[in-house]
């Protein structure tokens, strides 16, 4: 039973560039959420996707956007990268937007230089 998978695992981008991170949810899960974990901090909720729509959003600027595909996989896009966007980006999945058992992937490490 595959868990939550994310790609790429590591990447380096330059300020001002754009990045796309990808996530496949755990088998049987239809809801995907994204979190940002800065170094030494707890994860912060970015947004949640269910039925291909953004259902909830945290306190992140519009530079952060996402998408969910019919197969429930998801992408996180960040435009106009800032140095402060350097972080571990975690994808999480659950059954339904109200699912209370949430599983996380290994994360994508983004470094902005």
């Amino acid at each position, binding site marked *: 039973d595959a868990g*939550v998978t*994310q790609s790429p695992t590591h990447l380096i981008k330059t300020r001002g560039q754009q990045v796309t991170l990808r996530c496949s949810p755990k088998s049987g899960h239809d*809801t995907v*959420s994204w*979190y940002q974990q800065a170094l*030494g*901090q*707890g*994860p*912060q*909720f970015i947004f*949640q996707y269910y039925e291909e729509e953004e*259902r*909830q959003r*945290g306190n992140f600027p519009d530079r952060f956007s996402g998408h969910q595909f019919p197969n429930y996989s998801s992408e996180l896009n960040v435009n106009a990268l800032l140095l402060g966007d350097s972080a571990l980006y*975690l994808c*999480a999945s*659950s059954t*339904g*937007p*109200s*699912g*209370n*058992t*949430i*599983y*996380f*992937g*290994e*994360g994508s490490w983004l470094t902005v230089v």
Partner: protein
Amino acid sequence: AQSVTQLDSQVPVFEEAPVELRCNYSSSVSVYLFWYVQYPNQGLQLLLKYLSGSTLVESINGFEAEFNKSQTSFHLRKPSVHISDTAEYFCAVIKNAGGTSYGKLTFGQGTILTVHP
């Protein structure tokens, strides 16, 4: 809004000693509570959760946590730790609306547990 406070940023302990990682939360509504563990350079793994019922919940690897509603706490304990327990531990909450969660986790800042031989 919810907030979670983990009272210790780092907890060093010797192998086979007991440990307690403290977590307090603040919320105007009922919440579900979770502990996640993060090993170096890895994602988060669900350790245990409290949804309802018995206030004492246990994990498969010997950790337990007790929900205390009056003190708004959910402390994590283990009677005897191993070297392999060295990791960062995160306490988290989700809003609970009549048995249905809002699906968004709010995390504490994390506690780094270091087990020394």
